[in-house]
Protein backbone atom coordinates (compact mmCIF):
# COMPACT_ATOMS: atom_id res chain seq x y z
CA UNK A 1 0.00 0.00 0.00
CA UNK A 2 1.43 3.36 -1.01
CA UNK A 3 2.01 5.70 1.87
CA UNK A 4 4.12 8.83 1.59
CA UNK A 5 4.40 9.29 5.34
CA UNK A 6 6.80 6.36 5.67
CA UNK A 7 9.69 8.66 4.81
CA UNK A 8 8.97 10.90 7.84
CA UNK A 9 11.63 9.36 10.13
CA UNK A 10 14.22 10.39 7.52
CA UNK A 11 12.71 13.83 6.85
CA UNK A 12 12.37 14.75 10.53
CA UNK A 13 16.03 13.91 11.18
CA UNK A 14 17.06 15.87 8.09
CA UNK A 15 15.17 18.96 9.21
CA UNK A 16 16.48 18.65 12.75
CA UNK A 17 20.01 18.63 11.37
CA UNK A 18 19.36 21.61 9.09
CA UNK A 19 17.67 23.62 11.84
CA UNK A 20 20.57 22.90 14.15
CA UNK A 21 22.95 24.18 11.45
CA UNK A 22 21.29 27.60 11.65
CA UNK A 23 22.20 27.83 15.33
CA UNK A 24 25.89 27.16 14.71
CA UNK A 25 27.28 29.16 17.67
CA UNK A 26 24.25 28.82 19.94
CA UNK A 27 24.88 25.50 21.61
CA UNK A 28 21.99 25.72 24.07
CA UNK A 29 19.51 26.11 21.21
CA UNK A 30 21.19 23.23 19.40
CA UNK A 31 20.74 20.99 22.41
CA UNK A 32 17.03 21.80 22.61
CA UNK A 33 16.55 21.33 18.85
CA UNK A 34 18.33 17.99 19.01
CA UNK A 35 16.17 16.65 21.84
CA UNK A 36 12.94 17.94 20.28
CA UNK A 37 13.94 16.43 16.92
CA UNK A 38 14.67 13.09 18.51
CA UNK A 39 11.33 13.11 20.34
CA UNK A 40 9.53 13.93 17.08
CA UNK A 41 11.36 11.13 15.27
CA UNK A 42 10.35 8.75 18.02
CA UNK A 43 6.72 9.79 17.61
CA UNK A 44 6.66 9.40 13.81
CA UNK A 45 8.58 6.11 14.00
CA UNK A 46 6.16 4.69 16.55
CA UNK A 47 3.25 5.87 14.43
CA UNK A 48 4.75 4.20 11.36
CA UNK A 49 5.30 0.98 13.31
CA UNK A 50 1.69 0.89 14.47
CA UNK A 51 0.47 1.54 10.92
CA UNK A 52 2.61 -1.22 9.44
CA UNK A 53 1.81 -3.64 12.26
CA UNK A 54 -1.92 -3.23 11.80
CA UNK A 55 -2.17 -2.41 8.10
CA UNK A 56 0.60 -4.40 6.42
CA UNK A 57 3.63 -3.38 4.39
CA UNK A 58 3.78 0.24 3.19
CA UNK A 59 5.70 1.36 0.12
CA UNK A 60 6.72 4.65 -1.44
CA UNK A 61 7.86 4.92 -5.05
CA UNK A 62 10.15 7.93 -5.31
CA UNK A 63 8.88 10.54 -7.80
CA UNK A 64 6.14 8.16 -8.90
CA UNK A 65 8.45 5.91 -10.94
CA UNK A 66 6.95 2.46 -10.81
CA UNK A 67 8.67 -0.28 -8.91
CA UNK A 68 11.56 -1.97 -10.60
CA UNK A 69 12.54 1.25 -12.41
CA UNK A 70 12.50 3.91 -9.71
CA UNK A 71 13.76 3.90 -6.15
CA UNK A 72 11.38 2.22 -3.74
CA UNK A 73 11.08 2.79 -0.04
CA UNK A 74 9.54 -0.06 1.87
CA UNK A 75 8.41 -0.24 5.47
CA UNK A 76 7.81 -3.77 6.67
CA UNK A 77 7.78 -4.81 10.31
CA UNK A 78 11.53 -5.51 10.31
CA UNK A 79 12.57 -2.08 9.04
CA UNK A 80 9.98 -0.34 11.22
CA UNK A 81 11.22 -2.07 14.37
CA UNK A 82 14.77 -1.04 13.51
CA UNK A 83 13.64 2.56 12.95
CA UNK A 84 11.82 2.57 16.28
CA UNK A 85 14.83 1.16 18.14
CA UNK A 86 17.09 3.68 16.42
CA UNK A 87 14.83 6.48 17.56
CA UNK A 88 15.05 5.21 21.16
CA UNK A 89 18.83 5.10 21.02
CA UNK A 90 18.93 8.45 19.21
CA UNK A 91 16.83 10.13 21.89
CA UNK A 92 18.96 8.70 24.68
CA UNK A 93 22.15 9.85 22.96
CA UNK A 94 20.90 13.37 22.25
CA UNK A 95 19.88 13.83 25.87
CA UNK A 96 23.17 12.40 27.11
CA UNK A 97 25.13 14.59 24.66
CA UNK A 98 23.58 17.74 26.13
CA UNK A 99 25.90 17.30 29.11
CA UNK A 100 28.27 14.56 28.04
CA UNK A 101 29.79 16.39 25.05
CA UNK A 102 32.21 19.26 25.53
CA UNK A 103 31.00 22.65 24.26
CA UNK A 104 34.05 22.88 21.99
CA UNK A 105 32.80 19.89 20.04
CA UNK A 106 29.31 21.35 19.74
CA UNK A 107 30.79 24.50 18.22
CA UNK A 108 32.06 22.36 15.36
CA UNK A 109 28.65 21.02 14.45
CA UNK A 110 28.31 17.97 16.66
CA UNK A 111 24.51 17.95 16.72
CA UNK A 112 23.85 18.48 12.99
CA UNK A 113 26.24 15.64 12.16
CA UNK A 114 24.67 13.36 14.77
CA UNK A 115 21.27 13.90 13.18
CA UNK A 116 22.62 13.38 9.67
CA UNK A 117 23.98 10.06 10.93
CA UNK A 118 20.59 9.09 12.37
CA UNK A 119 18.95 10.17 9.10
CA UNK A 120 21.30 7.86 7.21
CA UNK A 121 20.42 4.98 9.53
CA UNK A 122 16.69 5.48 9.06
CA UNK A 123 17.17 5.75 5.30
CA UNK A 124 19.16 2.51 5.20
CA UNK A 125 16.42 0.70 7.13
CA UNK A 126 13.60 1.99 4.93
CA UNK A 127 15.02 1.70 1.43
CA UNK A 128 14.01 -1.11 -0.89
CA UNK A 129 16.70 -0.54 -3.50
CA UNK A 130 20.15 -2.05 -3.21
CA UNK A 131 22.03 0.86 -4.73
CA UNK A 132 20.10 3.28 -2.59
CA UNK A 133 21.19 1.18 0.39
CA UNK A 134 24.79 1.80 -0.72
CA UNK A 135 24.15 5.54 -0.83
CA UNK A 136 22.66 5.52 2.68
CA UNK A 137 25.68 3.55 3.88
CA UNK A 138 27.90 6.29 2.51
CA UNK A 139 25.80 8.95 4.25
CA UNK A 140 26.28 7.01 7.46
CA UNK A 141 30.02 6.54 7.12
CA UNK A 142 30.81 10.12 6.13
CA UNK A 143 28.83 11.37 9.13
CA UNK A 144 30.51 8.83 11.38
CA UNK A 145 33.98 9.88 10.12
CA UNK A 146 33.26 13.44 11.19
CA UNK A 147 31.87 12.38 14.57
CA UNK A 148 34.84 10.14 15.15
CA UNK A 149 37.46 12.77 14.33
CA UNK A 150 35.67 15.74 15.91
CA UNK A 151 37.93 17.02 18.64
CA UNK A 152 41.13 15.88 16.96
CA UNK A 153 43.00 14.25 19.82
CA UNK A 154 45.88 12.06 18.71
CA UNK A 155 44.39 8.72 19.78
CA UNK A 156 41.11 9.68 18.16
CA UNK A 157 42.70 10.57 14.83
CA UNK A 158 44.74 7.37 14.85
CA UNK A 159 41.63 5.29 15.51
CA UNK A 160 39.87 7.10 12.68
CA UNK A 161 42.50 6.06 10.11
CA UNK A 162 41.76 2.38 10.75
CA UNK A 163 38.04 3.04 10.81
CA UNK A 164 38.14 5.10 7.61
CA UNK A 165 40.31 2.68 5.65
CA UNK A 166 38.25 -0.40 6.51
CA UNK A 167 34.93 1.30 5.85
CA UNK A 168 35.96 2.63 2.45
CA UNK A 169 37.25 -0.85 1.61
CA UNK A 170 33.91 -2.32 2.69
CA UNK A 171 32.11 0.14 0.42
CA UNK A 172 34.30 -0.86 -2.51
CA UNK A 173 33.40 -4.53 -1.96
CA UNK A 174 29.73 -3.69 -1.59
CA UNK A 175 29.84 -1.66 -4.81
CA UNK A 176 31.57 -4.52 -6.63
CA UNK A 177 28.83 -6.85 -5.43
CA UNK A 178 26.15 -4.46 -6.66
CA UNK A 179 27.91 -4.17 -10.03
CA UNK A 180 28.01 -7.94 -10.54
CA UNK A 181 24.45 -8.32 -9.31
CA UNK A 182 23.26 -5.69 -11.78
CA UNK A 183 25.26 -7.43 -14.51
CA UNK A 184 23.59 -10.80 -13.95
CA UNK A 185 20.05 -9.61 -13.23
CA UNK A 186 19.66 -6.14 -14.73
CA UNK A 187 17.76 -4.72 -11.77
CA UNK A 188 18.48 -3.03 -8.45
CA UNK A 189 15.12 -3.25 -6.73
CA UNK A 190 15.42 -5.75 -3.89
CA UNK A 191 11.98 -7.27 -4.44
CA UNK A 192 12.68 -7.65 -8.15
CA UNK A 193 16.15 -9.05 -7.38
CA UNK A 194 14.54 -11.65 -5.14
CA UNK A 195 12.57 -13.00 -8.11
CA UNK A 196 15.37 -12.66 -10.68
CA UNK A 197 18.12 -14.21 -8.53
CA UNK A 198 15.90 -17.17 -7.63
CA UNK A 199 15.41 -17.82 -11.35
CA UNK A 200 19.13 -17.82 -12.19
CA UNK A 201 20.59 -21.15 -13.18
CA UNK A 202 24.28 -20.54 -12.56
CA UNK A 203 24.24 -20.92 -8.76
CA UNK A 204 28.04 -20.68 -8.42
CA UNK A 205 27.96 -17.18 -9.87
CA UNK A 206 25.24 -16.27 -7.37
CA UNK A 207 27.36 -17.65 -4.52
CA UNK A 208 30.38 -15.61 -5.59
CA UNK A 209 28.26 -12.46 -5.74
CA UNK A 210 26.88 -13.28 -2.31
CA UNK A 211 30.41 -13.56 -0.95
CA UNK A 212 31.06 -9.94 -1.98
CA UNK A 213 28.08 -8.90 0.11
CA UNK A 214 29.29 -11.04 3.01
CA UNK A 215 32.68 -9.28 2.89
CA UNK A 216 31.21 -5.79 2.46
CA UNK A 217 28.62 -6.06 5.22
CA UNK A 218 30.93 -8.26 7.27
CA UNK A 219 33.55 -5.50 7.52
CA UNK A 220 30.87 -3.01 8.51
CA UNK A 221 29.44 -5.23 11.20
CA UNK A 222 32.89 -6.38 12.43
CA UNK A 223 32.78 -10.05 11.52
CA UNK A 224 35.94 -12.19 11.75
CA UNK A 225 38.56 -11.77 10.21
CA UNK A 226 37.97 -8.09 9.44
CA UNK A 227 36.79 -6.92 12.85
CA UNK A 228 40.01 -5.36 14.17
CA UNK A 229 39.17 -1.78 13.20
CA UNK A 230 36.33 -1.80 15.73
CA UNK A 231 38.18 -2.40 19.00
CA UNK A 232 40.99 -0.12 17.87
CA UNK A 233 38.72 2.84 17.16
CA UNK A 234 35.56 2.67 19.27
CA UNK A 235 37.28 3.56 22.52
CA UNK A 236 38.56 6.88 21.19
CA UNK A 237 35.55 9.20 20.55
CA UNK A 238 33.41 10.66 23.38
CA UNK A 239 31.08 8.16 25.03
CA UNK A 240 27.91 9.58 23.49
CA UNK A 241 29.42 9.07 20.02
CA UNK A 242 30.70 5.62 20.93
CA UNK A 243 27.17 4.78 22.08
CA UNK A 244 25.68 5.56 18.64
CA UNK A 245 28.49 3.67 16.94
CA UNK A 246 28.39 0.66 19.23
CA UNK A 247 24.62 0.48 19.39
CA UNK A 248 23.69 1.26 15.82
CA UNK A 249 26.49 1.33 13.25
CA UNK A 250 27.49 -2.32 13.42
CA UNK A 251 23.81 -3.25 13.62
CA UNK A 252 23.02 -1.58 10.30
CA UNK A 253 25.53 -4.01 8.75
CA UNK A 254 23.67 -6.87 10.45
CA UNK A 255 20.36 -5.47 9.22
CA UNK A 256 21.71 -5.38 5.66
CA UNK A 257 22.99 -8.96 5.98
CA UNK A 258 19.60 -10.15 7.18
CA UNK A 259 17.79 -8.24 4.45
CA UNK A 260 20.05 -9.42 1.63
CA UNK A 261 20.37 -13.01 2.82
CA UNK A 262 16.68 -13.58 3.43
CA UNK A 263 15.37 -11.77 0.38
CA UNK A 264 17.96 -12.01 -2.39
CA UNK A 265 20.42 -14.79 -1.60
CA UNK A 266 18.69 -17.57 0.29
CA UNK A 267 21.57 -19.37 2.08
CA UNK A 268 22.40 -22.70 0.44
CA UNK A 269 24.78 -25.20 2.05
CA UNK A 270 27.88 -23.24 1.03
CA UNK A 271 26.64 -19.88 2.36
CA UNK A 272 25.17 -21.40 5.52
CA UNK A 273 28.46 -23.14 6.32
CA UNK A 274 30.40 -19.97 5.59
CA UNK A 275 28.18 -17.87 7.87
CA UNK A 276 28.29 -20.39 10.70
CA UNK A 277 32.09 -20.73 10.47
CA UNK A 278 32.44 -16.94 10.52
CA UNK A 279 30.06 -16.76 13.48
CA UNK A 280 32.07 -19.26 15.52
CA UNK A 281 35.37 -17.48 14.84
CA UNK A 282 33.81 -14.06 15.51
CA UNK A 283 32.44 -15.17 18.86
CA UNK A 284 35.75 -16.71 19.91
CA UNK A 285 37.97 -13.77 18.88
CA UNK A 286 35.59 -11.28 20.52
CA UNK A 287 35.62 -13.37 23.67
CA UNK A 288 39.39 -13.59 23.94
CA UNK A 289 39.73 -9.85 23.30
CA UNK A 290 37.14 -8.91 25.93
CA UNK A 291 38.68 -11.08 28.62
CA UNK A 292 42.07 -9.37 28.60
CA UNK A 293 40.99 -5.70 28.39
CA UNK A 294 41.03 -3.45 31.43
CA UNK A 295 39.52 -0.36 29.84
CA UNK A 296 35.72 -0.50 30.03
CA UNK A 297 35.14 0.77 26.51
CA UNK A 298 37.75 -1.51 24.93
CA UNK A 299 36.13 -4.42 26.69
CA UNK A 300 32.69 -3.37 25.43
CA UNK A 301 34.09 -3.05 21.89
CA UNK A 302 35.24 -6.66 21.98
CA UNK A 303 31.89 -7.69 23.42
CA UNK A 304 30.23 -6.08 20.37
CA UNK A 305 32.36 -8.30 18.13
CA UNK A 306 31.53 -11.35 20.24
CA UNK A 307 27.77 -10.70 20.17
CA UNK A 308 27.74 -9.93 16.44
CA UNK A 309 28.75 -13.59 16.11
CA UNK A 310 25.54 -14.70 17.87
CA UNK A 311 23.43 -12.93 15.25
CA UNK A 312 25.46 -14.16 12.26
CA UNK A 313 25.22 -17.68 13.70
CA UNK A 314 21.45 -17.38 13.90
CA UNK A 315 21.33 -16.23 10.29
CA UNK A 316 23.60 -19.10 9.24
CA UNK A 317 21.37 -21.74 10.86
CA UNK A 318 18.43 -20.22 8.98
CA UNK A 319 15.69 -22.18 10.72
CA UNK A 320 12.69 -20.25 11.99
CA UNK A 321 13.74 -20.50 15.62
CA UNK A 322 17.33 -19.53 14.83
CA UNK A 323 16.20 -16.41 12.98
CA UNK A 324 13.89 -15.54 15.85
CA UNK A 325 16.79 -15.84 18.26
CA UNK A 326 19.09 -13.76 16.10
CA UNK A 327 16.53 -10.98 15.59
CA UNK A 328 15.58 -10.92 19.25
CA UNK A 329 19.27 -10.63 20.03
CA UNK A 330 19.62 -7.79 17.54
CA UNK A 331 16.82 -5.80 19.21
CA UNK A 332 18.19 -6.46 22.68
CA UNK A 333 21.73 -5.65 21.57
CA UNK A 334 20.91 -2.24 20.08
CA UNK A 335 19.43 -1.07 23.39
CA UNK A 336 21.91 -2.65 25.71
CA UNK A 337 25.09 -1.74 23.80
CA UNK A 338 24.05 1.90 23.41
CA UNK A 339 23.35 1.93 27.11
CA UNK A 340 26.60 0.15 27.88
CA UNK A 341 28.65 2.91 26.28
CA UNK A 342 26.53 5.60 27.96
CA UNK A 343 27.22 3.84 31.27
CA UNK A 344 30.93 3.79 30.44
CA UNK A 345 30.70 7.56 29.95
CA UNK A 346 28.84 7.91 33.23
CA UNK A 347 31.44 5.82 35.07
CA UNK A 348 34.10 8.08 33.57
CA UNK A 349 32.29 11.08 35.09
CA UNK A 350 31.81 9.33 38.43
CA UNK A 351 35.29 7.86 38.83
CA UNK A 352 37.44 10.01 36.56
CA UNK A 353 38.74 7.00 34.63
CA UNK A 354 37.63 4.13 32.45
CA UNK A 355 40.43 1.88 33.59
CA UNK A 356 38.86 -0.75 35.80
CA UNK A 357 41.96 -1.20 37.95
CA UNK A 358 42.19 2.48 38.85
CA UNK A 359 38.51 2.70 39.65
CA UNK A 360 36.40 1.44 42.54
CA UNK A 361 33.95 2.10 45.31
CA UNK A 362 31.06 3.08 43.07
CA UNK A 363 28.57 0.92 44.93
CA UNK A 364 29.20 2.46 48.33
CA UNK A 365 29.10 6.01 46.91
CA UNK A 366 26.10 5.68 44.59
CA UNK A 367 24.00 2.63 45.53
CA UNK A 368 20.92 3.60 43.48
CA UNK A 369 22.88 4.43 40.34
CA UNK A 370 24.75 1.15 40.75
CA UNK A 371 21.47 -0.72 40.86
CA UNK A 372 20.42 0.92 37.60
CA UNK A 373 23.71 0.01 35.95
CA UNK A 374 23.51 -3.53 37.35
CA UNK A 375 20.18 -3.96 35.61
CA UNK A 376 21.74 -3.10 32.25
CA UNK A 377 24.90 -5.12 32.80
CA UNK A 378 22.92 -8.20 33.86
CA UNK A 379 20.72 -7.81 30.77
CA UNK A 380 23.89 -7.78 28.71
CA UNK A 381 24.98 -11.06 30.31
CA UNK A 382 21.51 -12.53 29.86
CA UNK A 383 20.55 -13.48 33.39
CA UNK A 384 16.92 -14.65 33.31
CA UNK A 385 14.42 -13.06 33.14
CA UNK A 386 16.30 -10.08 31.64
CA UNK A 387 16.44 -9.45 27.93
CA UNK A 388 19.67 -11.21 26.93
CA UNK A 389 18.31 -14.54 28.12
CA UNK A 390 15.41 -15.08 25.71
CA UNK A 391 17.28 -14.90 22.41
CA UNK A 392 19.92 -17.32 23.68
CA UNK A 393 17.24 -19.90 24.52
CA UNK A 394 16.05 -19.69 20.91
CA UNK A 395 19.58 -19.97 19.54
CA UNK A 396 20.35 -23.01 21.69
CA UNK A 397 17.11 -24.71 20.70
CA UNK A 398 17.78 -24.06 17.02
CA UNK A 399 21.34 -25.33 17.36
CA UNK A 400 20.26 -28.59 19.01
CA UNK A 401 17.47 -29.17 16.53
CA UNK A 402 19.78 -28.89 13.52
CA UNK A 403 22.90 -30.32 15.17
CA UNK A 404 25.17 -27.25 15.01
CA UNK A 405 27.11 -28.32 18.10
CA UNK A 406 30.24 -26.29 17.37
CA UNK A 407 28.21 -23.11 17.20
CA UNK A 408 26.44 -23.99 20.44
CA UNK A 409 29.83 -24.51 22.04
CA UNK A 410 30.99 -21.10 20.83
CA UNK A 411 27.82 -19.41 22.10
CA UNK A 412 28.30 -21.07 25.51
CA UNK A 413 31.90 -19.87 25.64
CA UNK A 414 30.84 -16.38 24.52
CA UNK A 415 28.11 -16.21 27.17
CA UNK A 416 30.41 -17.36 29.93
CA UNK A 417 33.09 -14.90 28.91
CA UNK A 418 30.51 -12.11 28.92
CA UNK A 419 29.52 -13.16 32.42
CA UNK A 420 33.17 -13.25 33.46
CA UNK A 421 34.04 -9.78 32.13
CA UNK A 422 30.90 -8.21 33.56
CA UNK A 423 31.61 -9.84 36.93
CA UNK A 424 35.15 -8.48 36.71
CA UNK A 425 33.80 -5.02 35.89
CA UNK A 426 31.39 -5.25 38.80
CA UNK A 427 34.03 -6.39 41.26
CA UNK A 428 36.62 -3.84 40.11
CA UNK A 429 34.51 -0.72 39.63
CA UNK A 430 31.63 -1.20 42.04
CA UNK A 431 32.82 -3.32 44.96
CA UNK A 432 36.54 -2.80 45.28
CA UNK A 433 37.81 0.09 47.41
CA UNK A 434 39.36 2.69 45.09
CA UNK A 435 43.17 2.55 45.01
CA UNK A 436 44.87 5.44 46.76
CA UNK A 437 47.04 7.65 44.56
CA UNK A 438 50.52 8.93 45.42
CA UNK A 439 49.21 12.03 47.16
CA UNK A 440 46.58 10.11 49.10
CA UNK A 441 43.75 11.28 46.78
CA UNK A 442 41.19 8.76 45.68
CA UNK A 443 38.96 8.94 42.63
CA UNK A 444 38.24 12.15 40.77
CA UNK A 445 34.47 12.55 40.99
CA UNK A 446 33.28 15.04 38.40
CA UNK A 447 29.66 14.08 38.89
CA UNK A 448 28.94 15.26 42.45
CA UNK A 449 29.61 18.99 41.88
CA UNK A 450 27.34 19.07 38.81
CA UNK A 451 24.05 20.95 38.86
CA UNK A 452 21.11 18.56 39.60
CA UNK A 453 19.62 19.33 36.17
CA UNK A 454 22.83 18.23 34.46
CA UNK A 455 22.93 15.13 36.62
CA UNK A 456 19.42 14.29 35.43
CA UNK A 457 20.47 14.78 31.80
CA UNK A 458 23.23 12.22 32.31
CA UNK A 459 21.23 9.65 34.23
CA UNK A 460 17.83 9.95 32.49
CA UNK A 461 18.93 8.42 29.13
CA UNK A 462 20.51 5.46 30.93
CA UNK A 463 17.32 4.98 32.94
CA UNK A 464 15.18 5.38 29.80
CA UNK A 465 17.05 2.71 27.86
CA UNK A 466 17.21 0.49 30.95
CA UNK A 467 13.42 0.72 31.26
CA UNK A 468 12.99 -0.38 27.63
CA UNK A 469 15.50 -3.21 28.16
CA UNK A 470 13.53 -4.26 31.22
CA UNK A 471 10.39 -4.29 29.12
CA UNK A 472 12.09 -6.40 26.44
CA UNK A 473 13.07 -8.86 29.18
CA UNK A 474 9.87 -9.01 31.20
CA UNK A 475 7.50 -8.50 28.28
CA UNK A 476 9.39 -10.94 26.10
CA UNK A 477 6.17 -12.44 24.79
CA UNK A 478 5.22 -9.22 23.01
CA UNK A 479 8.68 -8.88 21.48
CA UNK A 480 8.59 -12.54 20.49
CA UNK A 481 5.31 -11.88 18.64
CA UNK A 482 6.93 -9.07 16.66
CA UNK A 483 10.00 -11.19 15.97
CA UNK A 484 7.87 -14.14 14.89
CA UNK A 485 5.99 -11.89 12.48
CA UNK A 486 9.28 -10.67 10.99
CA UNK A 487 10.58 -14.22 10.61
CA UNK A 488 7.40 -15.22 8.82
CA UNK A 489 7.93 -12.32 6.42
CA UNK A 490 11.54 -13.39 5.92
CA UNK A 491 10.73 -17.03 5.28
CA UNK A 492 8.05 -16.11 2.76
CA UNK A 493 8.89 -12.80 1.10
CA UNK A 494 5.88 -12.95 -1.26
CA UNK A 495 3.91 -10.22 0.58
CA UNK A 496 6.99 -7.96 0.46
CA UNK A 497 7.51 -8.56 -3.25
CA UNK A 498 3.82 -8.09 -4.02
CA UNK A 499 3.68 -4.88 -2.04
CA UNK A 500 6.71 -3.38 -3.78
CA UNK A 501 5.95 -4.48 -7.32
CA UNK A 502 2.19 -3.91 -6.89
CA UNK A 503 1.50 -7.49 -7.95
CA UNK A 504 -1.35 -9.62 -6.77
CA UNK A 505 0.12 -13.06 -7.25
CA UNK A 506 -0.30 -15.77 -4.70
CA UNK A 507 2.48 -18.36 -4.36
Amino acid at each position, binding site marked *: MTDNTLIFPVIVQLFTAITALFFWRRTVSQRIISIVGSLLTMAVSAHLFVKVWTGGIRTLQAAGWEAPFGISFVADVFSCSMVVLTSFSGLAVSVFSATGIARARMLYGYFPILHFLLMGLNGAFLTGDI*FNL*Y*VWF*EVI*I*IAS*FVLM*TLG*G*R*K*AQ*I*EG*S*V*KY*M*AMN*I*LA*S*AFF*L*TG*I*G*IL*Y*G*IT*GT*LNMADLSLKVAALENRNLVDITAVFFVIGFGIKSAVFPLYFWLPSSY*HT*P*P*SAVAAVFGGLLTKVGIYALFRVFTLIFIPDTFLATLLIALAILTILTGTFGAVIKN*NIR*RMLSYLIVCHIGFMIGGLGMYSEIALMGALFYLFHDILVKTNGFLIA*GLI*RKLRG*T*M*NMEKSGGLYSDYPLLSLLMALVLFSLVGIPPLSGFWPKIHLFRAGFEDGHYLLIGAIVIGSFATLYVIAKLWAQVFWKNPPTGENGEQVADEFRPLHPFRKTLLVAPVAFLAAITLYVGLGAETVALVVQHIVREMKDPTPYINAVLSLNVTP
Partner: protein
Amino acid sequence: MEIVLILLIGILYASGIFMLLRRSMVKLLIGLTLLGNGANLLIFLLGRITKGKPPVIDSAAKLFTDVYADPVPQALILTAIVISFGLQAFAIVLLKRVYVLVNSDDLDDLNTPEEEDI
Protein backbone atom coordinates in the same frame (compact mmCIF):
# COMPACT_ATOMS: atom_id res chain seq x y z
CA MET B 1 36.70 -3.32 -26.17
CA GLU B 2 35.48 -5.65 -23.40
CA ILE B 3 38.76 -7.50 -23.18
CA VAL B 4 40.66 -4.25 -22.62
CA LEU B 5 38.28 -3.23 -19.86
CA ILE B 6 38.47 -6.65 -18.25
CA LEU B 7 42.26 -6.47 -18.13
CA LEU B 8 42.14 -2.90 -16.85
CA ILE B 9 39.69 -3.78 -14.09
CA GLY B 10 41.85 -6.72 -13.07
CA ILE B 11 44.94 -4.54 -12.92
CA LEU B 12 43.12 -1.83 -10.94
CA TYR B 13 41.80 -4.30 -8.36
CA ALA B 14 45.11 -6.11 -8.05
CA SER B 15 47.23 -2.99 -7.70
CA GLY B 16 44.64 -1.44 -5.36
CA ILE B 17 44.76 -4.38 -3.00
CA PHE B 18 48.56 -4.55 -3.25
CA MET B 19 48.80 -0.87 -2.29
CA LEU B 20 46.38 -1.39 0.61
CA LEU B 21 48.67 -4.01 2.04
CA ARG B 22 51.64 -1.62 2.22
CA ARG B 23 52.50 0.21 5.42
CA SER B 24 52.62 3.71 4.01
CA MET B 25 49.52 5.86 4.51
CA VAL B 26 49.83 7.54 1.12
CA LYS B 27 49.87 4.14 -0.53
CA LEU B 28 46.81 3.17 1.50
CA LEU B 29 45.03 6.17 0.02
CA ILE B 30 46.14 5.37 -3.52
CA GLY B 31 45.03 1.78 -3.00
CA LEU B 32 41.54 2.85 -1.93
CA THR B 33 41.27 5.18 -4.92
CA LEU B 34 42.35 2.50 -7.40
CA LEU B 35 39.93 0.00 -5.90
CA GLY B 36 37.07 2.49 -6.17
CA ASN B 37 37.89 3.19 -9.80
CA GLY B 38 38.07 -0.52 -10.51
CA ALA B 39 34.59 -0.97 -9.04
CA ASN B 40 33.24 1.88 -11.18
CA LEU B 41 34.66 0.40 -14.36
CA LEU B 42 33.25 -2.99 -13.39
CA ILE B 43 29.74 -1.54 -13.19
CA PHE B 44 30.33 0.12 -16.55
CA LEU B 45 31.40 -3.15 -18.13
CA LEU B 46 28.65 -5.28 -16.57
CA GLY B 47 26.00 -2.81 -17.70
CA ARG B 48 26.60 -4.11 -21.28
CA ILE B 49 28.57 -1.74 -23.45
CA THR B 50 26.52 -0.65 -26.45
CA LYS B 51 27.89 1.73 -28.99
CA GLY B 52 25.90 4.38 -30.84
CA LYS B 53 22.44 3.29 -29.67
CA PRO B 54 19.93 5.58 -27.96
CA PRO B 55 18.89 4.97 -24.36
CA VAL B 56 15.39 6.35 -24.98
CA ILE B 57 12.51 4.84 -26.83
CA ASP B 58 10.79 6.47 -29.76
CA SER B 59 7.66 8.24 -28.55
CA ALA B 60 5.49 6.37 -31.03
CA ALA B 61 6.76 2.92 -30.07
CA LYS B 62 5.58 0.92 -27.10
CA LEU B 63 8.47 -1.54 -26.80
CA PHE B 64 12.20 -1.63 -27.42
CA THR B 65 12.71 -3.41 -30.69
CA ASP B 66 16.33 -2.49 -31.28
CA VAL B 67 19.49 -2.79 -29.18
CA TYR B 68 19.55 0.09 -26.68
CA ALA B 69 22.09 1.65 -24.37
CA ASP B 70 21.34 1.12 -20.69
CA PRO B 71 21.52 4.48 -18.85
CA VAL B 72 21.35 2.99 -15.34
CA PRO B 73 25.04 1.95 -14.97
CA GLN B 74 26.15 5.46 -15.92
CA ALA B 75 23.88 6.96 -13.29
CA LEU B 76 25.26 4.50 -10.75
CA ILE B 77 28.87 5.29 -11.64
CA LEU B 78 28.25 9.02 -11.51
CA THR B 79 26.80 8.62 -7.99
CA ALA B 80 29.66 6.37 -6.94
CA ILE B 81 32.27 8.79 -8.32
CA VAL B 82 30.81 11.74 -6.44
CA ILE B 83 30.63 9.74 -3.21
CA SER B 84 34.16 8.40 -3.51
CA PHE B 85 35.38 11.91 -4.31
CA GLY B 86 33.94 13.14 -1.02
CA LEU B 87 35.38 10.23 0.91
CA GLN B 88 38.81 10.61 -0.65
CA ALA B 89 38.88 14.33 0.09
CA PHE B 90 38.11 13.53 3.71
CA ALA B 91 40.73 10.78 3.78
CA ILE B 92 43.42 13.11 2.44
CA VAL B 93 42.70 15.72 5.10
CA LEU B 94 42.61 13.07 7.80
CA LEU B 95 45.92 11.53 6.74
CA LYS B 96 47.53 14.97 6.52
CA ARG B 97 46.36 15.59 10.09
CA VAL B 98 47.78 12.24 11.21
CA TYR B 99 51.07 13.11 9.55
CA VAL B 100 51.20 16.41 11.44
CA LEU B 101 50.39 14.74 14.76
CA VAL B 102 52.45 11.57 14.50
CA ASN B 103 55.15 12.88 12.16
CA SER B 104 55.31 9.59 10.32
CA ASP B 105 53.85 8.00 7.21
CA ASP B 106 54.06 4.50 8.67
CA LEU B 107 50.79 2.86 9.73
CA ASP B 108 52.66 0.85 12.35
CA ASP B 109 53.37 4.04 14.28
CA LEU B 110 49.70 4.62 15.03
CA ASN B 111 49.78 2.97 18.40
CA THR B 112 49.41 5.74 20.93
CA PRO B 113 48.14 4.15 24.14
CA GLU B 114 44.79 5.16 25.52
CA GLU B 115 44.56 8.78 26.55
CA GLU B 116 42.40 9.44 29.57
CA ASP B 117 40.22 12.34 28.59
CA ILE B 118 36.69 12.90 27.26
